[in-house]
Structures are given as C-alpha cells and as structure tokens.
C-alpha cells in the first residue's frame, strides 16, 4: 500500500542529509562539549556551528540561540523565564497548550493573564493587543502561525506595539519556522520558540531565541551550559541535526520552496472543494503558512475520516481525540467561531517539502471516496436527538 504523509504539523520525516549529519555523533564523534579534551572541543565546535545555522534561519546572532528539548520547553522557558508573580501576560485563545497551560500555571503562581479572542479566520486583532496592555504587563506571547489552520498572525504589528509599550514580545514560531521567512528583527520579538522535529530535524531538540540583553530565569539549574540559561549536557546529535535542518530550510526558502509548496497546497484545496460537496477550508481568508489545510466536511466525523484515510495509507489528523465519550471539538476551531459539529467534522492536512503532486492527487481521490462512503451511512439531516 502506497503511503502519503500529510501530518507534518505533528512531526516531520528526518531528511536524509540530516540523518547523515548526525550519524557520526552517535558513534566516533561522541563527546561532552563541556570537556576541555580534544574530543570535547570537537563536540563544542559542532554545537557552535549548529548555533550559527539556527541563528541564520531566523536572522539572529548565534549567541542569542539557546538549545532546548523542543517547542514545549522553549515556550515554558520564554514565559516562566520572564514572568513573576504580579506580572501580566497577554496571549490568545488559539495558542498551543504549551502556552495556554503555562499561563494557567503562572496564574496559579500569582501572575495575571489576558487571553485574547481571534476572528473567524483565526487572527488576533493588534488593536485588541494594544487595548489589553496594563501597567503590569510584562510579556505579549502570540504565535507566528497556528498549528491547526496555519493562520499567520500579524506578529510584526504586535512586535511594534510591544516595543512602543516597553513590553517583551514572545512568538511561538514552531509552525512557522522553515515554512515562511522569519526574521527576529523584522518581527521585533525578544523571544522566539523553534522545534526541531517540525522542520525535519530529530524529535527532542529545539531552540529559543533570546534577544541580547533580555533577562531570562533558567528553568533547569545545574551546569553552565547555554550561558547558564539551560543547564544539562547538550543533546549533541540533536543540536547538530537541528543545525543541519535549519541550514537546509534556509536554502529551501531562498530557492522558492515555500511558493512551490503553497501552489501544491492550493491545488489540493481547490480540488477538494471542487470534488467534495459541503467542504470548506477553515481560515481560508487569512494569510497562512504554505503547507497547512484545515478542512471541514459537513455531516461526518473528522475522527472517522482520519481513520478511514489511515486504513488506506494516508496520514492526516484531527485536533480532537476521544476519551471515554468526551471529545471536545478542536479548541482552535471553536475559538474561531466554528460550530462544534463543524469543528468535529474538520481534518487537518499538513504537507512538507517531501510531499509530491502524486501524493496530493492520491489523497484527493481517497478523500472523495471516503467522505462519500461516510456520508452514505450518516443520519439524514432531519433527526431528533433522543438522548
């Protein structure tokens, strides 16, 4: 059975070049970068090189990159590293749980938070950000692009608002980095989160950009690694992999890869909407990263469609997982104003640079068949709920 992987917002396949780059660090090039030995210093050199590669992806200086274990740690470090009891943070309703749950924890510790609403396309209104500023506001944290819909937030405008107000600005760029050009100077952010496995690096590695001069409290205390901002022996192979993946992503973006992927994604959406009745693209009116499609198929369960596609070798996803009869509809979609039944009926397709036209064509064919099959067994619209 041929397989088509359209779940790259969940995780991506390691690129062969990345695999080759990290392979020696699992064998003869192992070493502890804190050691003054030749072996240790060779490891240090590899980390320094990777730091530069990651910095170039986002327009930062190498010394502003802190390696982490991934997006969740980066988000937690950004928020918990700058927020103290009594501080106020502004974020929005469609952030990743790494932000929202972290805010909840900060609130329990005595901070306050404003969770901004988004419009029907999933965008934050910069005027709402400005209006939410308080005397104790310490940080604005608004994601660069959403994981569910791919909607790009007006981060440059929000960065200006933060700068004018003298407030720190963090952006979770986990779903944006490597898909669109991101430049920390243009965005005007002080903190920016990256995750390796969303851009063809290994899982378990990420980075936080920390603008020079930003005071950041470490989450992990111990050795002096990462300039005292993240203790613990470095994940050498992971860091090398992230560096290589960042270098490849920079080159891909520079060669117009993003526009090619956007054309492929747009063709996919056009064919789906053309061939399948009552299919609508969530967030279609907003600027979006070029790889993501969230599509609602009325009168079916998104979970059933994902399973049906999976049985045919096509991997997609739904933001909703059922647990003991309770499956909240994807909160990102309901925050955009989608009715719960449409949110439950939505499926996310996320491509990558490895996705081909043949993949997309096969996915559309299967989608048309499976949506038709599931709708054929769906209750007619005129039912009355008895339970």
């Amino acid at each position, binding site marked *: 059975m041929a397989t088509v992987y359209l779940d790259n917002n969940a995780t991506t396949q390691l690129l062969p070049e990345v695999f080759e780059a990290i392979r020696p660090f699992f064998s003869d090039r192992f070493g502890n970068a804190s050691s003054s030995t030749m072996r240790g210093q060779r490891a240090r050199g590899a980390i320094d090189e990777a730091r530069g590669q990651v910095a170039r992806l986002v327009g930062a200086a190498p010394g502003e990159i802190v390696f982490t274990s991934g997006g969740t740690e980066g988000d937690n470090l950004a928020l918990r590293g700058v927020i103290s009891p009594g501080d106020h943070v502004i974020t929005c309703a469609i952030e990743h749980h790494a932000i929202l749950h972290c805010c909840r924890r900060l609130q329990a510790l005595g901070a306050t938070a404003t969770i901004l609403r988004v419009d029907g396309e999933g965008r934050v209104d910069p005027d709402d950000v400005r209006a939410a500023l308080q005397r104790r506001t310490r940080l604005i944290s608004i994601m660069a692009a959403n994981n569910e819909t791919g909607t790009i937030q007006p981060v440059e405008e929000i960065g200006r608002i933060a700068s004018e107000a003298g407030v720190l600005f963090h952006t979770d760029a986990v779903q944006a980095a490597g898909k669109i050009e991101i430049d920390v100077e243009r965005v005007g952010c002080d903190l920016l989160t990256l995750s390796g496995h969303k851009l063809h690096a290994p899982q378990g590695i990420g980075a936080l950009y920390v603008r020079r001069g930003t005071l950041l409290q470490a989450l992990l205390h111990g050795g002096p690694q990462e300039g005292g901002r993240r203790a613990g022996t470095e994940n050498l192979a992971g860091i090398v992999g992230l560096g290589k993946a960042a270098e490849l992503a920079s080159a891909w973006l520079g060669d117009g890869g993003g526009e090619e992927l956007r054309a492929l994604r747009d063709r996919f959406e056009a064919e789906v909407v053309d061939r399948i009745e009552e299919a609508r693209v969530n967030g279609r009116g907003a600027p979006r990263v070029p790889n993501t499609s969230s599509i609602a198929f009325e*009168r*079916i*369960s998104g*979970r*059933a469609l994902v*399973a*049906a596609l999976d*049985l045919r070798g096509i991997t997609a996803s739904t933001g*909703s997982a*059922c*647990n*003991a*009869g*309770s*499956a909240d*509809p994807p909160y990102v979609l309901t925050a955009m104003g989608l009715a*719960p*039944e449409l949110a*439950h009926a939505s499926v996310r397709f996320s491509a990558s640079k490895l996705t081909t036209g043949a993949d997309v064509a096969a996915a559309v064919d299967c989608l048309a068949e499976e949506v038709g099959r*599931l709708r*054929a*067994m*769906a*209750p*007619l619209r005129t*039912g*009355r*709920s*008895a*339970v």
Partner: protein
Amino acid sequence: MYSPLVVDHFKHPRNVGAVAEATARGRAANPGCGDVVELSLRVEEGTIREARFRATGCVPTIACASRLTELILGVTVSDALGIGRDTLVEAVGGVPDASRHAAQLSVAALRLALGTKGGSPPERRGREAR
C-alpha cells in the same frame, strides 16, 4: 489498535440505511463527542425481522452499530434487550477502554427503539457497568 472485526465493520458496515417500513426507531446522540446512531427496525410478532443503522462517529461507533444490527436480526425483543454494552464490545472483538461508550450509544439507540428509554431492563440491571 482496533480489533480486526472493528476494522472490518468500519470498512464494510452491514445493514446501512433505514428500514423501509420500520415499526421501531431509536436515535441516540453523545453530545460529548458529537457521535450519533440511528436504528430502524421491523419487528413482527415480537421478533426483529430487519434492522438497519445510520451513524456519524468514530470507528468504534460505526463498528458497534453495524455489529449490533447483525446481533439482533431474528432475535426476540426480549433477547435483544438483553444485549448490553459489554456484550456488544465483546461481539466486535473488543474496543479500547476509552471507546466503550461507543457500544453504549448503539445499545441506547436499540433500547429507545424498543421503548425502554435507554435504561437496562429490570432483570438485567446491574449486570453491566456503565
């Protein structure tokens, strides 16, 4: 992972649709996850002669509804009412614990169709954990 029987019923559901001249209908919905099961039956002289279903829901919901239509065919109303959640789960080769409610939805639709408002019949009450 789903049992082969669950996958088979999901891929090839039996008795989809509505009975043309149904004598009983039941519709159960789970607002928690949005799943819906509709059953229509033709009952003659206390025996279920035809059963069909329509469903929107996850894999176990569709599989359980499909399997239930097989289980109740040719069965007396009294025996059909004896089919509970655990019986149905067993009949599809098991489902993950978090999905056992899927079987309950089909059982509720059946009991509504047969006029027992979703509750266990008195003689069976207590046998099946809910």
